[in-house]
């Protein structure tokens, strides 16, 4: 079936004078945004790109980023967004895996990773010295004025790829998730419907757009004619909170890490947000203690707990805000258009209290992994996405995630969920964040190793106090064998804890412990 491409879906029919994006120093109207995307589209066609070619996109959230993203989609090419802090090795590897010959790069990245860019057509956000061995090099400002009228979008088969989103690699090698134009449009419509978004909504975007959750903020708000306020300064949360107030944001979206920092390390609880209508939390599990604090902080705002995966474009479920307290800890049910089930090994729906795997069906389920046939067959079966997340349902079929299928440890013959231990640990007032992994153990089979970040600088005796706390709260088989105190947990650019690094801690102790500097 032929249809609109994503750029058409997001940009056409909008009031050209209305603000689409707001940056620190400038605002960009829908008319301007369409024109800037059109300049990129014209550039890509001049590079002799053909439909289906991949275009790598690397940079922080900016007008250049959004223009390149939409311009690529506009011409029917496939965008491959990656984090601005990707290493040169990672950038090389994704260039090789995706086969991209055109690179849209933030100047700072292009300069530091010049060695990886040979043999590509390069466009940067600002002018930089010539990079050797590139096929061509241009900067955004030097592009000619728009040549592509806004109505001129490539018509695409709905099944055609729009993007390769490389998964965070928190559990292993990065894999390119193949997202179609139809996937993005379907997921965008679902999210808009359950959040009741309208053109009056103004979203504070601190999440990077290369991450599917961040991209979904862009998709949904542009689709309804709303506004996205871009702020890349979350490392200074006070500046973001003040900007939310000043720009009258109606929405905020974050991962657990964002909310933990706001609740524990900012003036969030003491500030008022009169324009705020809703907050969204996705991108991982926010421990119930933080959900309760969030509700206490924002008693009259809608709080949406959501669940998703890159393999499902972005989001799969939501918990209606009015159910937040009654169903605390639940990820809710499937979003409009998504069927979400929890099934046993025979594929039957589990009964309340039983554990099974979450399986999703819907028009947002991706086509598979780029050039990874076996992985695709394991995860995408008969049109369903096998998420690898283990869950239970209650009597009302609300879903509660127990853990990742691979995030269990078998201690003394009993299966122990790392996440449940982490939740108990987070209730200890001395801990800011924590992660639990399994380590081989001659006697137990596997034993638990706890990584904990202390709340304050008084770390003398911290390990002993945590061990003692565990003894009061956990059964014998769940007691940690080792406790390591870190200054922070290793995270990827989407804010997810990299357990793969923690598991290698003994063999590659690259993580500075708190004692290294005290």
């Amino acid at each position, binding site marked *: 079936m032929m249809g609109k491409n994503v750029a058409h879906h997001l940009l056409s029919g909008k009031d050209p004078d209305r603000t689409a994006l707001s940056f620190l120093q400038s605002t960009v109207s829908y008319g301007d945004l369409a024109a800037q995307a059109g300049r990129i589209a014209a550039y890509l066609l001049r590079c002799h790109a053909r439909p289906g070619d991949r275009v790598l996109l690397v940079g922080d959230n900016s007008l250049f980023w959004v223009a390149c993203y939409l311009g690529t989609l506009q011409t029917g090419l496939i965008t491959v967004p990656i984090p601005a*802090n990707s290493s040169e090795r990672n950038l090389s590897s994704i260039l090789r895996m995706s086969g991209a010959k055109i690179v849209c790069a933030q100047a700072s990245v292009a300069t530091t990773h010049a060695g990886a860019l040979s043999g590509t057509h390069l466009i940067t956000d600002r002018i930089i010295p010539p990079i050797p061995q590139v096929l061509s090099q241009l900067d955004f400002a030097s592009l000619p004025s728009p040549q592509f009228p806004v109505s001129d979008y490539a018509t695409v088969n709905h099944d055609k790829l729009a993007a390769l989103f490389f998964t965070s690699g928190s559990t292993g090698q990065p894999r390119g998730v193949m997202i179609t134009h139809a996937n993005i449009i379907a997921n965008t419509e679902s999210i808009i419907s359950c959040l009741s978004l309208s053109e009056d909504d103004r979203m504070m975007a601190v999440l990077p757009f290369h991450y599917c959750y961040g991209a979904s903020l862009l998709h949904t708000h542009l689709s309804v004619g709303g506004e996205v306020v871009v702020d890349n*300064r979350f*490392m200074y949360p006070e500046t973001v909170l003040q900007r939310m107030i000043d720009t009258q944001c109606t929405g905020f979206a974050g991962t657990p890490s964002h909310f933990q920092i706001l609740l524990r390390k*900012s*003036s969030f609880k003491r500030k008022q947000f009169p324009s705020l209508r809703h907050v969204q939390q996705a991108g991982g599990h926010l421990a119930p*203690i933080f959900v309760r604090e969030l509700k206490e902080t924002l008693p009259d705002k809608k709080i949406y707990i959501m669940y998703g995966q890159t393999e499902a474009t972005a989001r799969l479920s939501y918990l209606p805000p009015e159910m937040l307290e009654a169903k605390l800890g639940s990820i809710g049910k499937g979003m409009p258009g998504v069927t979400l089930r929890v099934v046993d090994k025979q594929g039957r729906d589990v009964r309340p209290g039983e554990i099974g795997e979450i399986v999703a069906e819907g028009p947002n389920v991706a086509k598979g992994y780029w050039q990874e046939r076996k992985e695709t067959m394991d995860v995408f079966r008969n049109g369903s996405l096998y998420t690898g997340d283990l869950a239970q349902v209650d009597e009302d079929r609300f879903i509660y995630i127990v853990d990742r299928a691979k995030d269990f440890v078998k201690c003394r013959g009993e299966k122990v969920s790392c996440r449940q231990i982490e939740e108990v640990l987070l209730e200890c007032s001395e801990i800011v964040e924590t992660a639990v992994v399994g380590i081989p153990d001659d006697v137990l089979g596997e034993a638990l190793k706890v990584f904990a970040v202390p709340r304050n600088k008084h770390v003398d005796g911290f390990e002993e106090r945590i061990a003692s706390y565990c003894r009061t709260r956990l059964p014998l088989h769940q007691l940690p064998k080792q406790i390591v105190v870190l200054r922070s*947990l290793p995270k990827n650019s989407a804010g997810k804890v990299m357990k793969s690094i923690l598991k290698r801690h003994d063999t590659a102790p690259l993580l500075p412990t708190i004692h290294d500097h005290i």
Partner: protein
Amino acid sequence: MLQTIRRFVIDNYLFGEEGQLGDEDSFMETGIIDSTGILELVRFLETTYGIKVTDEELIPDNLDSVSKIVSFILAKQSDSQQTPHDCSSRLPEETRP
């Protein structure tokens, strides 16, 4: 002080590559420190210089380069010498349950 702070940033965020950091370089613009990294940095400053950084002080004007940090710490230390009940006494109550 400048060298100590510089060393901390280089060792922890730049993998020891000294040449990449100017004293005026913005951490935010260069992208070398993220949101949890800045909390590590603050904890280091509190421990090393005996100051307390409030939530409201966690802003780019105070912390976004090696030079800004030095000025900020000197001002904090000077404040606390002038007022025996230093700024830590003005901290909000801990809100953690």
